[in-house]
C-alpha cells in the first residue's frame, strides 16, 4: 500500500508538470490549429537557457527564471513570424512536418552550442524531502509540482479575466467574429506561440531541475501527445486532467509492470492507454467533436 501511495504521489507530481507543458501545446492548438511537435524542444531550450544563466553566467535563480521566460517568448515569436505564419491553412501533413523539422533544427543547434554532454542545475529548492504522514516526497518533485501548478493557475486567471486572455479565447472560438470586434487576430496567433513557448520552457526548467538537461530532453515532448489526446486537443481542462492521468499511469506501470516485462513499461503504458481511450472516445475525453460540412 505504501509503495502504491509513493507511486501515486510521484505520479501526481510529474503529472502536474506534464499538465503545464500540455497547456502550452493546447494554447497553440486552440488559437492556430497547429499541432506543435517541437514542444519538447521548447522545453529543452528553456532548460538550457536557465543552465547558461545560472551556471555559466552565475546569476541567481529568480533573474535567470525571468531570462528563461523572455528567451522562450522570443523563440516563440521568432518561430511564429518566420515559419508558422506561412503555414496557416496548409494541409495537416505540412503543419505536422514543419514542426517536426523545427524540432530537429532546435535539437541540432542546442547540441552545437551546449554539446551533447549531460548538464545539471545547481539546487533550486530546499533539499529537505517533504514528509506527509508516512509518505516521503522528493523535494524536487514537490516544488516542481508547486511551480507547475502555480503557472497553470496564472495562465488560467489570465484567460478568465485579463483582456488579452479573453481576446485569445474569442479568437479560438470564432476568428471572423473576433476580427469584427476589433481583435487583432494575427497578434493573437503570435501571442499564443509566445505563451505556449513560455509554458513549455517552464516545464523544461522543472524537468531539467529533476533530471538534468541534454539535447535529447525534447524526447519527453512525445509524452505530451498521450496527455493532450486523452484530454482532447482543444480543451485546457482536459490537458490538465490528461497530465495527471499520464503521470499516474506511467508511474504505476513503472512500479508494477517493469519488473515483469524487464523495463520500458513506463514509456509505453501511456500510449497503450491512449489507444484504448481513443477506441472508445475518438475525440479524447473532453475534445469537441467537429461537425463537418461540405
Amino acid at each position, binding site marked *: 500500500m505504501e509503495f502504491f501511495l509513493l507511486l501515486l504521489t510521484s505520479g501526481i507530481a510529474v503529472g502536474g508538470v506534464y499538465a503545464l507543458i500540455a497547456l502550452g501545446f493546447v494554447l497553440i492548438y486552440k488559437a492556430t490549429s497547429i*499541432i506543435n511537435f517541437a514542444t519538447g524542444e521548447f522545453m529543452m531550450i528553456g532548460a538550457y537557457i536557465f543552465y547558461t544563466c545560472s551556471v555559466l553566467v552565475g546569476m541567481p535563480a529568480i533573474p535567470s527564471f525571468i531570462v528563461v521566460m523572455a528567451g522562450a517568448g522570443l523563440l516563440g515569436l521568432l518561430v511564429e513570424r518566420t515559419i508558422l505564419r506561412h503555414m496557416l491553412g496548409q494541409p*495537416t*501533413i505540412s503543419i505536422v512536418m514543419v514542426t*517536426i*523539422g*523545427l524540432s530537429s533544427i532546435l535539437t541540432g543547434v542546442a547540441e552545437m552550442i551546449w554539446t*551533447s554532454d549531460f548538464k545539471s542545475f545547481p539546487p533550486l529548492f530546499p533539499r529537505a524531502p517533504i514528509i506527509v504522514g508516512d509518505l516521503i516526497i522528493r523535494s524536487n518533485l514537490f516544488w516542481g509540482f508547486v511551480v507547475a501548478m502555480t503557472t497553470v493557475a496564472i495562465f488560467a486567471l489570465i484567460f478568465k479575466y485579463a483582456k488579452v486572455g479573453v481576446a485569445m479565447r474569442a479568437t479560438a472560438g470564432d476568428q471572423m467574429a473576433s476580427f469584427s470586434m476589433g481583435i487583432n487576430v494575427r497578434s493573437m496567433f503570435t501571442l499564443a506561440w509566445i505563451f505556449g513557448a513560455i509554458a513549455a520552457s517552464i516545464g523544461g526548467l522543472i524537468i531539467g531541475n529533476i533530471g538534468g538537461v541534454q539535447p535529447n530532453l525534447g524526447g519527453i515532448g512525445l509524452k505530451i501527445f498521450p496527455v493532450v489526446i486523452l484530454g482532447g486537443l482543444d480543451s485546457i481542462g482536459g490537458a490538465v486532467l490528461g497530465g495527471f492521468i499520464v503521470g499516474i499511469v506511467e508511474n504505476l506501470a513503472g512500479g508494477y509492470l517493469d519488473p515483469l*516485462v524487464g523495463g520500458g513499461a513506463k514509456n509505453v503504458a501511456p500510449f497503450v492507454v491512449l489507444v484504448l481511450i481513443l477506441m472508445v472516445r475518438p475525440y*479524447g475525453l473532453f475534445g469537441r467533436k467537429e461537425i463537418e460540412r461540405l
Partner: protein
Amino acid sequence: MRIGDYKESYAADEAVFVTSTSRFWLGVLFVMLAIFPFMAGEYLLYMANITGIAIVAALGLNILTGAAGQISLGHAAFVGIGAYTAAVLTNRFGLSLIVCLPLAGLVSAFFGVLVGAPSMRMKGLYLCITTLAAQVIFEFFFVHWESLTGGIRGLNIEPPTIFGLDVGSEFGFYWVTLVVVVIAATMSRNIFRTRVGRAFIAIRDRDISAELMGINLFRYKLYAFAVSSFLAGVAGCLWVNHLKSITPEHFPLHESIRYLAMIIVGGLGNILGAIYGAIFMTLIPEVLQTILKFFEGYFPQAMAYLYPLQTVVFGLLIVLFLVFEPHGLAEMWCRVKAYFRLWPFKH
C-alpha cells in the same frame, strides 16, 4: 516538341510513358543501372543498396500518406516488422530470400491493417497520433519480446542466396534491390491508375465527398494501410538481408520521420518524387560528411559538428521545402524541364 494529344488506340491512351523520348531515356537509365555495378566500388554499391531499400519504403509511405492522405508516424515500425519476420523465417525455417520477401510484406501488411483499424472512427491528427502510439508500442515489442527478436542484441542472419546463387555481397545484392525497386515502382504507378488508387486520392482530397460518391472510406483506408505496410515489410526484408543483422535501434521514431521527410522533399503523392526524395535524403548525410572532411584541414574540430549539423540540415530541408517548394523535387525537376524545352525563348 509535343504540342497535342493524338491518341488513336486504347493502348496508346493507357501507356505510362507517353512519348518516345521518355521511353528512350528510360532505356538509357536501365542500361546505366545495369553497367553501374561493374564500374562502382564497394562503397558506392553499399550506398546504392541502402538507397534502393529506402526507395521501396518511401514508395510504400507515399501510397498511404501521399495518395490516401493518412499521416503515418509508424512507418519504420512496419519496416522493422518486415525485417524481424524475414530474420525469424530465415533462421528458424530456413526459407530463402525469394520466399521471405512476399511473406515479410504480408506479415507487415497484417499489422498495418491492425494499426489502420482505428481509422474507422478517427482521422487527421488523432489518427496520426495513433500511428505514433503504434511506433512506440512496436518498438517496445522489438526490445522486450526477447525469445523472438533477440532483445537489444537483435538477430543475425546468414548471407542470403537465390536459386543457389550467393547474393550476400554488395554486388550480388545490388541486383536483388534493383529488381525489387523496379517491381515496387511499377506496382505503385499502376495502383494510381486503378479504381483503388483513384479512391485513395478522392479520400485524400475530401473524405466526405469521397464517401458520398460511394467509396467505402474504412475499407479503402485499410487497403492503403495494407499496401503501404506491405512495401515497408518488403523493404525490411531487404534491409535485414543486406545488413545481415538487426537491432531495435534500427527502427526508431526518427526513422519514421525520415521516411516522411523523403516523400515531402521529393513531392507528396508523386512516384518519382518518392524516388528522388529517398535518393536525396540518403545522400545528404554523406555529402555533409564529405564537406566537413574538406573543412577539417582548416578547422581541426569540424568533424565534431557532423552529427548536430546533420540534424540541423535535416530539419532545415523539411522546413524550407514546405515553405518554398511544397511540391518537392519532382516539381522542381518539371520546371527545369519546362524551361529547357523552350529555351532560349521564355514563353
